[in-house]
């Protein structure tokens, strides 16, 4: 039985929730607004909220000055590449653990999770050394591999929880009806697995895109992605709020949009299914 809610109560809820929501969102909103101001308007006292001369100048300057496209491209390659590699390795593993579980499956899963909890700083120097020895420092390949490895446990876990929800009876039924293994995989399993794989890809791209320990420590100029690009703004030079905002907006926009699509996967992926 649903409780009846008076419109007045609903109105109060709405106002309160929107107020809190906008307050939390405000720093992002303010950054986006500032990116369209001139540097002078950006630091105007009192601050200008909406009524100013909107300009795209900052985006142009940022693009020209710091070769934004190269950083963006590095981010795309590193986030996309590490996700693709990760999926390639994780799908067979998660698949076999979900459909052919053995007595040790649970231990293996928990052990994989435990590698995710290794603090990065504890292995910083060895990785740094290995990278120098192998000529991987400041290379996209090296960073792609590292990000794939740190997110691999999450990918395997997410895929495992999705695959486990595919009922084994369906497979048996297909087999009874005379489907070969190949047909079984193409016509029965793949269509059921695709939504799970898609959500996993989405969450992993977000995590890789925003990773800011290895990307800052293992890159210099060539392979630096957007996280490092933004970090280069940490030493201010004259008036730079509007440009910082433009650069920030460009760095977060694609992920913000992807992120809004993947709220549910976020809970599932980052809690390893412990909260449903």
């Amino acid at each position, binding site marked *: *039985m649903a409780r009846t*809610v008076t419109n007045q109560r609903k109105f109060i*809820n709405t106002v309160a*929730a*929107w107020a*809190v*929501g906008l307050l*939390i*969102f405000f720093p992002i909103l303010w950054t986006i607004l500032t990116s369209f101001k001139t540097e002078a308007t950006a630091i105007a*006292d*009192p*601050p200008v909220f909406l009524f100013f001369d909107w300009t795209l100048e900052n985006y142009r300057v940022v693009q020209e000055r710091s070769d934004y496209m190269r950083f963006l491209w590095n981010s795309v390659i590193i986030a996309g590449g590490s996700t693709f590699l990760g999926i390639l*390795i*994780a799908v067979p593993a998660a*698949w*076999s653990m979900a459909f*052919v579980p*053995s007595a040790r499956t*649970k231990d293996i899963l*928990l052990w*994989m999770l*435990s*590698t995710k*909890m*290794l*603090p*990065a*700083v*504890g*292995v*910083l*120097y*060895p990785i*740094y050394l290995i990278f120098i020895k192998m000529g991987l420092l400041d290379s996209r390949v090296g960073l792609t591999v590292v990000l794939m*490895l740190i997110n691999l446990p999450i990918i395997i876990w997410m895929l495992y929880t999705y695959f486990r929800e595919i009922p084994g009876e369906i497979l048996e039924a297909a087999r009874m009806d005379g489907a070969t293994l190949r047909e079984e995989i193409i016509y029965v399993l793949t269509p059921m697995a695709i939504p799970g794989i898609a959500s996993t890809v989405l969450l992993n791209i977000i995590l890789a*895109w*925003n990773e*800011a*320990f290895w990307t*800052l*420590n293992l890159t210099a100029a060539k392979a630096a992605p957007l996280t*490092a690009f933004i*970090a280069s*703004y*940490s030493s201010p030079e004259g008036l*730079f709020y509007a440009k*910082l905002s433009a650069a920030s907006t460009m*760095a*977060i926009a694609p*992920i913000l949009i*992807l*992120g*809004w699509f993947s*709220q549910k996967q976020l809970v599932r992926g*980052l*809690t*390893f299914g*412990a*909260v*449903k």
Partner: protein
Amino acid sequence: MATKASRSAARLMMAPAVILLLGWMLVPLCMTLYFSFKKYLPLRGGDLGWVGFENYVRFFSSSAFWPSVQATLVIVGGVLVITIVFGILLAILLDQPMWGQGIVRILVIAPFFVMPTVSALVWKNMFMDPVNGLFAHLWKFFDATPIEWLSQASMTSLVIIVSWQWLPFATLILLTAIQSLDSEQLEAAEMDGAPPLSRFGYITLPHLSRAITVVVLIQTIFLLSIFAEIFVTTQGSFGTKTLTYLIYQRVLESQNVGLGSAGGIFAVILANIIAIFLMRIVGKNLDA
């Protein structure tokens, strides 16, 4: 039915992932352990031989160690308290019937998707800057002297920035848990005359206990290794040198690898203690 053949096929399919993760974990960890017993200064003579536990003794007795533990605890503790208290309140609010619930949820979750370097720089410059920041304007509006956030109140500032980043995560998980609460229980309690506070204390809060534990454990693991936020704001000055940042400075800035590695091993042990508790909860869920 799992046959013998399918079992060995399964093992084969698992092998790449297991081998990669095993290598990723063991090789660097053994190297760190090895370095931690050596005097190793890459820029000043390289490998200068075994020193036993000297690095550990020096790391723990250095004047920077206890302040870094304290800074770490303040950040982890502060952020946990803020995100959980406000997370619960927000989750309850978002669970109420309202107009535009989906949009509000999107607004609340957004900060989680902002990369750490962006959120730290935006807060540092556009909000906490003592001259041009929005907070400075706000303070001046009330005729108060603007605070130099990142130097005078450096820890508070960092806790604010990091809490803003993690509040969405806590809220989302707590909201997911609240939505699975049987509303009939609450209604029954309400009919029996239980006031809102006891309904919250006796029904909602116990229902959330598991979600809260998960939030605490997962956030602790991530918060212990906060790096970018400090890197682009204070660079570890003004008392914001956490354990992670201290180890980073020892290893990469002062190139004292032996000393840094001893600290690294300490950080690994610390994280493992928390991880064990998290594994228990997750492991229980695997059987269910």
